[in-house]
């Protein structure tokens, strides 16, 4: 039996940031990692993936970016090395190759069961990631069985797919990036897009990540929004690394055919929603509101003179009559790629901490009804940036303070 005050599950940015914060507070702990440090970044993503945020924005507690290219966008490999280097520099207690099989109540609070035996602890921090599994809609079961399908987890590069057309389902960052990549590989792509969030990569000469960070949009707290469950479900921004905007206009100019949300598969046909125009209007309106907010902030800061005049993106263009159906056996497509989002995998928590939809119930990462159990890195967990590398520091700081206070209370009692 091994004991630690706190067990952190997962050595990605969230687990490592938490470990740093616990170290500075003298809370003894261990990080259990099923693979290697930054495992999901190593294994579960496609080859060409680069971070959506510039290097300067990958700020972990006690260590920001110190390389030569602060405005560049790291590939997977660079991020993996940076996270591994961070763990090493700060001597964070990572145990790799340890798979957590379950977490149950234990004599000191919790017992974490692994293939090398149990760890007993007072606190558990679940930092296994918001994107641990691809999220695939149930209607996928209605696809013809001989039609090859891929997810953003098993797709690595265009040559993984058969020659021929591809239906990419999903209008967020992953879907648009992969639609662009597959169209460039010579495959005709049909992209099915539902509700989406559109932003220009650069605005008034600055990267959108700078705007969101500087104007405070990223720091909006989970108690400061009207409808938390809605913002937690909001799809990721249509963004790609680099200088250029990735939106529906851009991929259509490359030849991608855009259709509405995939709403049913019936009689061998994929049926798309007729609400595409509305979904694009909503995205255009939200983009305008965000840019208005940036402008208002810049004016208030007296920055208007330093920044070029606003250059507003054109509204989303669509074909006059977007198609509503696709015969799946006609040969027009040879594969389907699901880019329909991600979800966390908390199945190892053998504790009554889930709602009826199976989602972890928590108040800003403090799990409800399970004292000493914390989460990290979930969508809008404590603030808008909670899932970003850059969001780990503030959340870890808050939750480590909470944990420290709880431990002090218990010690005083």
């Amino acid at each position: 039996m091994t004991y630690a005050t706190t067990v952190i599950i997962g050595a990605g940015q969230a687990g490592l940031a938490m470990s740093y914060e616990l170290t500075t507070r003298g809370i003894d702990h261990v990080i259990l990692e099923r693979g290697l440090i930054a495992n999901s970044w190593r294994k579960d993503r496609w080859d060409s993936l680069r971070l959506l945020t510039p290097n300067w924005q990958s700020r972990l507690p006690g260590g920001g970016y110190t390389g030569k290219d602060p405005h560049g966008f790291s590939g997977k490999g660079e991020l993996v090395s940076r996270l591994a280097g961070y763990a090493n520099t700060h001597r964070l207690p990572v145990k790799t190759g340890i798979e957590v099989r379950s977490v149950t109540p234990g004599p000191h609070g919790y017992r974490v069961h692994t293939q090398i035996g149990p760890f007993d602890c007072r606190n558990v921090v679940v930092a296994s990631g918001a994107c641990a599994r691809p999220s695939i809609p149930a209607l996928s079961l209605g696809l013809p069985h001989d039609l090859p399908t891929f997810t953003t987890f098993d797709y690595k590069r265009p040559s993984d797919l058969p020659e021929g057309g591809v239906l990419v389902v999903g209008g967020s960052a992953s879907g648009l990036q992969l639609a662009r990549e597959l169209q460039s590989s010579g495959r005709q792509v049909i992209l099915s897009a539902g509700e989406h969030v559109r932003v220009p990569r650069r605005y008034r000469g600055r990267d959108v990540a700078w705007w969101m960070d500087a104007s405070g949009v990223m720091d909006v707290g989970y108690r400061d929004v009207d409808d938390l469950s809605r913002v937690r479900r909001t799809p990721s921004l249509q963004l790609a690394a680099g200088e250029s905007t990735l939106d529906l206009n851009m991929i259509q100019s490359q030849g991608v055919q855009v259709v509405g949300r995939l709403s049913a598969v019936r009689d061998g046909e994929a049926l798309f929603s007729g609400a595409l125009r509305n979904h694009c209007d909503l995205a255009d309106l939200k983009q305008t509101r965000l840019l208005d907010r940036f402008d208002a902030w810049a004016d208030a800061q007296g920055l208007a003179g330093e920044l070029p005049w606003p250059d507003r993106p054109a509204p989303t263009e669509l074909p006059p009559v977007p198609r509503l159906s696709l015969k799946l056996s006609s040969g027009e497509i040879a594969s389907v790629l699901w880019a329909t989002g991600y979800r966390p995998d908390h199945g190892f928590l053998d504790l009554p901490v889930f709602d009826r939809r199976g989602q972890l119930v928590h108040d800003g990462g403090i799990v409800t009804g399970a004292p000493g159990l914390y989460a990290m890195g979930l969508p809008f967990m404590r603030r808008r940036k909670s899932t970003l590398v850059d969001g780990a520091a503030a959340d870890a700081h808050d939750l480590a303070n909470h944990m420290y206070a709880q431990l002090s209370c218990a010690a005083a009692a």
Partner: protein
Amino acid sequence: MTTAGAVPEMDRFETKGWPTRVVRSIARVLRLGTISLTSPISQTQKEKDMNVQSPLTADNGVNVDALLGARQAITDMPAAGQFTWRATCEWQTGVQSRSIVEGFFGLGEEQERGAAFMIDADHPAQFAAGNAGATPLEIALSALASCLTAGVASVAQNRGIQLHKVTAHVEGDMDLAGVLGADADVRNGFSDIRVTFDIDADASEADIAALVAQSQKRSAVFDVITNPTNVSVSVA
């Protein structure tokens, strides 16, 4: 056509053994239209963000508090949100028919309106018909416009926007070759539907555009028309 009468009495729900708070907040939804809105609607964070220039006391006759309460109640007790809507359609003569809508199922039990509503459908003289009512297609277009308009009013109320006049013009294109079986490649239904709103409200153009966009996002009939629905038709 008659108007909506009495709404169900509260204690009828309470006998079902549900938490009173849940029942009360859902039941308030049924009283929409009979409630006079006196309490000012507070401005939400979203509107503050959007800099909506509108009075806090906008009154479009929509009880948003009740709707938001019902949403929370249904979140707490999902079964209460399961509704079944019905109509009974009676053939009259020729291609004329009359539909009656009366009761519905919801909040866990059968509900009565205390009134019946009648919808007459027919086809125009140009189709050698009696012209005793709108065509079913026009009723479908009206249903879409009514649903979106209800959405505009509700969203406006929630955002503190006072409406003065809202008019929706709806058009649907169809090729008769479909329903007449003259061309197998032409579908029976609409090839395109256009809705144009004329809105006079105390709000900016952008806020009005946002109202209209949001009303589509939350419209049941918009969803029914834009997405496929399983339909089974049988003989009793």
